[in-house]
């Protein structure tokens, strides 16, 4: 058996995808012009699939901070925090993130993926139990492969499903099984843009003495009066023992973090391998992230703009008859009947100058095929109205929408 034979099925599916002309997984942004525009295939394209929720990648103050940091401290750290030491800015960033959440401790990682991978796999060890939502991000699943703990999945966003699994650990005739219970949740799920019923989950976790770890990757900035995420908007920050997040979305750079009040939290600095054995964030990134956090605090109107844009796109597509994710969210998932329709639709949109993500099994929950749109606070109303119009046209062409223009109930009579 050849090394690549085991990927035969995937290779075949991938070949199908590429027959459409473009490879959706190797798109080349020939030139990025702004948070919402890039040149792709030689044409100016509207970006609605880049997780750039506040549009801060081109924020002048963040860009200046990064440039200054490069001049002052160079382009990179060339090593890990434990080998090459921490720069003052790493420490300052950790202090600022901890303060942002009102937590005592913070650890910063080089990517959000590494934060989840390292923290989750280390917190739950031999004899412990890790309970994860079925729709968890790949970084959480990969942490599960690394941990010595027993891993059990519960149904997506279903507190009673979690409770059944915690109860089984308790009702065992072998007695209440010893070992810590760690429950992993996400603020906003990245494929359909839906939020966890966090308060209900927290109640279940309290009842069974389980630790709560929540990943606010897609909800940082978007949710809560101060943009701390779902833990803030549902009023349970104090009940979330570990909050993980990323700098690569709302904050417009790259990196991950974990905050906690646990007095022994810092021991993770010498136990979490994805922290110890990889180079730390370069000064420019640390500087732009610190500035981006200041912008998030100073400009709450960006959050309002983001949700206004969510409403424009979500309600616009819904009115045309598209099947969408269950609720408004900075990610709007558009359901399509199958993989090839999704890829054809995606390609037609790109030809019309609009870039979104296409998500097909096995990357999606329940085997659904999706166009995944992510909104930006600086999208204009005109851009999004245009997008709804374009998608409606393609939807009719592909037979996803009925060919008759959908009339409002009042107008139909």
């Amino acid at each position, binding site marked *: 058996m050849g090394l690549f034979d085991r990927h035969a099925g995937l290779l075949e599916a991938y070949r199908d995808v590429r027959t459409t002309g473009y490879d959706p997984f190797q798109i080349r942004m020939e030139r990025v012009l702004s948070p919402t525009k890039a040149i792709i295939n030689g044409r100016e394209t509207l970006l609605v699939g880049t997780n750039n929720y506040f549009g801060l990648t081109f924020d002048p103050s963040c860009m200046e901070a990064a440039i200054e940091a490069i001049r002052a401290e160079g382009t990179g750290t060339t090593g890990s925090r434990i080998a090459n030491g921490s720069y003052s800015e790493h420490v300052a960033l950790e202090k600022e993130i901890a303060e942002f959440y009102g937590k005592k401790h913070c650890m910063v990682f080089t990517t959000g993926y590494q934060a989840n991978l390292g923290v989750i796999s280390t917190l739950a060890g031999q004899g412990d139990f890790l309970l994860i939502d079925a729709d968890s991000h790949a970084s959480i699943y990969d942490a599960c492969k690394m941990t010595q703990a027993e891993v059990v999945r*519960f149904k997506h966003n279903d507190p009673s499903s979690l409770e059944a699994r915690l109860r089984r*650990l308790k*009702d*065992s*005739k072998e007695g209440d099984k010893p070992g810590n219970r760690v429950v992993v949740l996400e603020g906003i799920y990245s494929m359909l843009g839906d939020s966890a019923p966090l308060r209900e989950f927290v109640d279940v976790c309290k009842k069974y003495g389980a630790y709560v770890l929540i990943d606010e990757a897609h909800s940082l900035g978007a949710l809560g009066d101060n943009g701390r995420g779902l833990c803030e908007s549902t009023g349970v920050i104090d009940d979330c023992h570990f909050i993980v997040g990323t700098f690569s979305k709302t904050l417009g750079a790259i990196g991950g973090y974990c905050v906690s009040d646990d007095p022994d939290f810092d021991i993770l600095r010498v136990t979490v391998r994805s922290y110890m054995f990889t180079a730390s964030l370069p000064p420019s990134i640390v500087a732009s992230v610190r500035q981006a956090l200041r912008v998030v605090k100073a400009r709450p109107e960006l959050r309002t703009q983001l949700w206004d844009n969510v409403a424009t796109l979500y309600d616009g597509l819904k009115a045309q008859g598209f099947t969408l994710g269950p609720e408004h969210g900075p990610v709007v998932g558009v359901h399509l009947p199958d993989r090839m329709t999704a890829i054809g639709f995606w390609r037609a949109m790109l030809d019309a100058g609009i870039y979104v993500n296409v998500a097909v099994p*096995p990357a999606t929950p*329940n085997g659904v095929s999706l166009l995944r749109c992510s909104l930006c606070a600086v999208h204009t109303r005109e851009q999004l109205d245009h997008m709804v119009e374009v998608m409606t046209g393609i939807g009719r062409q592909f037979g996803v929408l009925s060919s008759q223009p959908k009339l409002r109930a009042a107008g139909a009579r």
Partner: protein
Amino acid sequence: MRSLTLRLESRLRTAHELTVENDGIADTLTLTRGVLRAEVIREICVHLEPYQTGEKPITGETVIAKDLTIDSLAIMDMVMELEDRFDVSIPMSVIAEIHTVDQLADTIRDLGARA
């Protein structure tokens, strides 16, 4: 039946020990909990039918990931349904070692007997 179960439970701490010490008693305990092997297999088959290929029937020897068109994610989702149906939790590392319908049924029964 009920009193027998209670008596057995008070006498011996765990069903796991039961299995080791006396298969007959373990079977009795399993029966009282209503987890019959045939029932577990029947339930598994209901979940797997949509993924059947051709005329080949699903049996205990069917290799779930190979003989059927079900993908790994759908297998894990099916396991979640079975977990709730039979009130057991199957760790992901255990699922990874399960290949056939028989193995899945045995795992569910063993875990059920221990619960």
